[in-house]
Each structure stands twice: as C-alpha cells, then as structure tokens.
C-alpha cells in the first residue's frame, strides 16, 4: 500500500522534475488560453481576486486586465516565466498545500494540473484545497467559483487516440526539441466522462456547469453550503 510520502516522491520524479527540465520548451508551445478559460475569466467582475493554481507559463494571466491573480506553480522554472505578467503575482506552491487563507477568494482556476496527481485521494484533496480558498455563497451573495480542466480519456480523434475503456494511468512522452532532442515522460491520470464531477462532489463542491473541450473535461464549481 502506497503512503502519501511514496505518492509525493513518485510525482516528484515523474511530474515535477520533468517540468523543471522542459519548462522553456513547454512554455514556448503554450501561448493561447482555451475558449472556456477565456470566457470564465472575462465574466469576472472588475476587482475580483483569485488564484491560478498550476499556472505554468502564465498564459491565462492576461485575459482580464481588471482582476488580480495570485498564480502559483510547483515548478520554479515555470513560475519564473509566469512572473513577467504584470500586475499579477507568482509564487512557488503545491496544490495540496496552498499558502492562502480560507474563504477569501472570488475565483480559482486550475488548468491541466489535477491529472498529474497519482491517486484518487490526492486528486480529490487537490479540488478540496482549491474549494477551501473560495468564498462560499450566502443568501445575499453568490459564492466564488473554481474552473478545473483535466485531460480526457475519451479523445479518439486526437493524435494519441485513446478512448473509453483504455488504461487511465499513463506515462506520456514529451520530446524536448533542440540540437539534441531528448524525451521525457510525465505521469498522467486520464479522466473518464463524469469523473471530474464526481471528484468535485466528493471534495465538497457543487458543480454549476461542466463539459468537454479540446480533449479535456472541464467543470465550474462552488463550495457546497449547508442549505444546499
């Protein structure tokens, strides 16, 4: 039976160290926010304050000039690239131990991040940790919202070609281009239809909207409140 320390060490080797190595090239291939992410961020009220958990190179930080985002990434090399996007802030942090107070943010996004956690318990814990930071709704106010994206198992038209029934836990190669191309392998858990919504429910969230975009499952959720 794996322990949290073993799981963390596995992710350290098969996710975090790889991103440190491929940060520059990875960033150069990621420049455009996905449409649902763009819409979610554009719909926020001016003055909203939120989080981008696993911000990568920070490509989603410039969508809405009227909000303030504290971005974080597990990879210092990626966080350093994201730092250039003013007026936002970037720190190095882990999605399972976010350095933020509870119930204090209007929104949080986590795009293509939770699929790197290697057990169901850790994936649920990651969602719960994001929900913890969000202002819950009340009779007077709508609660804050989170947007989560995770890679889908059902992507038979992509170049990977995986589909329903295939193995969900995989090592996926990344070929770093250059004079001497080098291949790295990252761990992924591919989400099956409905799985992200189930995880959110188990983490104490209420799903407001969910769907499929560009080989990913996505969901928008808010913290459950006692009266719901």
């Amino acid at each position: 039976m794996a322990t949290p320390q073993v799981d963390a060490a596995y992710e350290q080797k098969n996710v975090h160290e790889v991103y440190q190595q491929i940060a520059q090239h990875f960033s150069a291939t990621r420049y455009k926010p996905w449409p649902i992410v763009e819409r979610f961020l554009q719909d926020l009220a001016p003055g909203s304050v939120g989080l981008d958990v696993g911000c990568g190179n920070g490509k989603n930080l410039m969508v809405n000039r009227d909000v303030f985002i504290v971005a974080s990434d597990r990879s210092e090399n990626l966080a350093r690239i994201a730092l250039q996007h003013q007026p936002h802030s970037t720190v190095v942090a882990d999605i399972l131990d976010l350095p933020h107070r509870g119930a204090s943010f209007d929104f949080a996004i986590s795009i293509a991040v939770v699929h790197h956690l290697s057990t169901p318990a850790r994936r649920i814990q990651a969602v719960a940790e994001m929900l913890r930071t969000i202002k819950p709704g009340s009779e007077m106010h709508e609660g804050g919202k989170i947007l989560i994206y995770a890679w889908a198992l059902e992507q038979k038209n992509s170049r990977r070609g995986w589909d329903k029934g295939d193995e969900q836990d995989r090592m996926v190669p990344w070929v770093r281009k250059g004079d001497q191309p080098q291949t790295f392998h990252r761990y992924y858990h591919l989400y099956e239809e409905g799985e992200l919504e189930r995880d959110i429910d188990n983490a104490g969230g209420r799903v407001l909207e969910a769907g499929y975009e560009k080989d990913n499952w996505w969901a928008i959720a808010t913290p459950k409140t006692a009266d719901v």
Partner: protein
Amino acid sequence: MKVITANFVTCAVKECKTSPESYPLHFHDAELEQQEQEFQPEFIRNIVPRIDWDALRTTSNELGFPSLPESKPEGEALDDEQILKDLHRLLLETQVSEGKLVCGNCGHEYMIKEGIANFLLPSHLV
C-alpha cells in the same frame, strides 16, 4: 515579490491556516527594490476594497515605510490621484527581491529568491 502578494498569502502548514497568528506572514531580512509598473488608477481603485488593511499596515511597517492611515481609503479618497499613486507604488512597484517570510504561528521560514517566494513544505510539515 510585490508587497500586495503578502496580503493574499499565509502559511502553507494546515494547522496554521486557521490561526490568526499566521497572517500576515512577516518579512525578515528583506531586500527591497522598486520596479516601475504602468499606473492604472482603475485597477488600484478596484483592488483597494479587497485589501486587508490591517495586514497591509503591518507589512508596510515591518518593511520600514511611513505609517499608513489607520483606516482604509474609501469613497472620495479613491478619486484622489495622489492616494492611488502612492498605493500603486507601495502595492505593485515595491518588491522584495531576497529575504524570508516567517509564520508567526509555527515559525516556519519561506525563502524569497530573485523575487519569488517558495511555499513548498519540507515533507515533515506536509
């Protein structure tokens, strides 16, 4: 790391997040630098209501700046360009390039290197 960031972070240790002692984190050995940013009065006007003013006063005091007014600027004060400019300078342009952030509850120190604070916990604190 911008001064505004300190207003929106706390200790990453689970038990500390509910302790009033852990917020705001305290800067130690902070090396300051000014980095010019585009002044956007509307952004400052929008963000000020979201600032925890007591925490900002503590932070600003610890970094050795003159005391901020006791109460947060609101209403007409937010139309005063000089007030907005001063806040812009403090919140966004004042950066801590090297130093530590220290939790007042557990004493854990988070290092700031080349402007980035690192909140990853050693395994015994996870």
